[in-house]
């Protein structure tokens, strides 16, 4: 059984949002829904300024608070680590939305809090999901954390990484390259 993970090198991101659009196309989302996004922050004062960009999406946490709080197990974690939601079981209480420290959830038109799925239909074939394959600078690299020879593990051995708000105890599966 694979154990999926994602490495994001935000320093390579140009902010073109092709990943957001590719995801919307692949998942047939309406314009107001997007499962991945770019968080931006300006630093400095003119003329010494910089735009910091952070690609964000569901972290598929090992200690996923959304799955923990879901009253009906509508949100669940698969053995390979992917966190999914079963629409038929969702009561629409939005507890997962308040529990997620990454704002990964988006309410869809059916009042189900949807989110990034890490496209298991691509990963299981060894392909990169749309957000990764569309990116001109290869900001994202999906892979198997359990396979010592996976591209992901090779890359992880070369760079220093950090995670977003690990103090929330979520144990996220997205690693960011330190700048």
């Amino acid at each position, binding site marked *: 059984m694979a154990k999926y993970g994602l490495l994001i090198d935000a320093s390579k991101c140009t902010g073109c949002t092709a990943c957001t659009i590719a995801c919307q196309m692949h998942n047939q989302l309406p314009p107001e829904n997007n499962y991945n996004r770019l*968080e931006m*922050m300006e630093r400095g004062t003119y003329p010494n300024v910089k735009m*910091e960009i*952070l690609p*964000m999406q569901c972290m598929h946490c090992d200690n996923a*608070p959304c799955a*923990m*709080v*879901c*009253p*009906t*197990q*509508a949100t669940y974690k698969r053995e390979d680590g992917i966190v999914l939601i079963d629409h*038929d*079981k*969702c*009561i*629409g*209480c*939005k*507890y997962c*939305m*308040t*529990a*997620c*420290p*990454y*704002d990964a*959830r*988006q*309410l869809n*038109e*059916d*009042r*189900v*809090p949807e989110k990034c799925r890490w496209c298991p239909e691509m990963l299981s074939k060894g392909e990169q999901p749309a957000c990764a394959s569309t990116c001109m600078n290869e900001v994202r690299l999906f892979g198997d954390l359990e396979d010592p020879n996976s591209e992901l593990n090779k890359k992880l051995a070369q760079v220093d990484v950090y995670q*977003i*708000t690990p103090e*929330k*105890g979520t144990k996220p599966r997205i690693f960011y390259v330190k700048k």
Partner: protein
Amino acid sequence: MFNRKLWIYLSAALIIAGLAGAVNVVVNGEHAMGTNNHVPWGALIAGYVFFVVSSTGLSLVASLGHVFKLERFEVIGKRAVLGSILTLVFGFVVIGLELGHPFNMVYLLFSANLTSAIFWMGLLYGIYLVLLIFELYFMFKGDHKKSTLFGLLVFISAIAAHSNLGAVFGFLVARPYWSGPYMSIYFILSALLSGSAILSVMFYIVGRNDQKREDFIYRNEHIVTSLGKLLALFLGITMFFTIWKVLTGLYGAAPGKYEAIMALLNGPLSGRFWLFEVLLGMVLPFVVLMTPGGFKLKRVFAAGLMTITGIFVMRLDLVAAGQIIPHEFFAGASEVGYNYSFISWSEWAIILGAIGGTILLYLVGEKKWNLDMDDVCYKHHVRNCCDCSEDRVISEHSIHHHHHA
């Protein structure tokens, strides 16, 4: 004079407004609500909390009389328990409308998640409702042994269900303003505050036509006066809790918590906080009660009304403050914005409609049933019998039979 017709018209108007709001929410879903992806819980969650806090409060205060045998409070029994059932039911109505897919709640049975506080909330409040109904039933039958037993079970389930409701918020590590054990403890306290405020108002209105009615008076003190004293006590404790919540939030500027407290003190929630929560909900009623002559019936009534209004805004603020601060993803970000949300007309209408429904059904209860104290207890009142042991239950029965004979 108590004008029954006026109350019926008023509650009917509220119910009609509520139905309009409910239809809008059912048809248009989240578009009819002031919530969004950053503030997923809105006024309906606050309204639900307001109702179930009221329910818990009513049964906790009622338990003083018929569980813990403080004779002074025996008189509130049936009215409090009936009010407790009605507020709980309308709390369920409000959250039922808030849920996107309320019928999927069957999966609470088939696919329960034991680590979810909302699962436990459904289970515990369900048990609590059933126990309340049994308690009221045995109260009507005059079966003191069984009604006391169910009173005790109601007391235990109320504490369990309501502190668990606090944990629904307290378990969320992602929301520093809510996270921790405070919410569970605070919810029990604020239930006692709600309960004594609502009962003060209720018994003032019920006893308004005859302020000398004997069954409301115990050792020369009117029940509303006694409830006013409880209210003053719980107001004092609530102020103490609020002060320490604020001070610990400010001290050391813990990320997320500090900003949320500042949103209340000096941010988008500050008007509501100072005017309604602090002034109307705590300080004014406390002053009204604690100045000389404060426990006169009219003043207790006024203090109760102010407190209930304040508590309602406390619930809105509690839900809003936990979500108003955006999650922080960048290290060293200097500017803090706020997550925006509002209360839509449909949300107001649903909450008001639920209040109308509670009042209307309560009036039906007053008309159909005798909600006064049983004669036996009443006789004990007059004779100031202080013996609360088992024999008393037996002797009560003998008096009861004798009385009817």
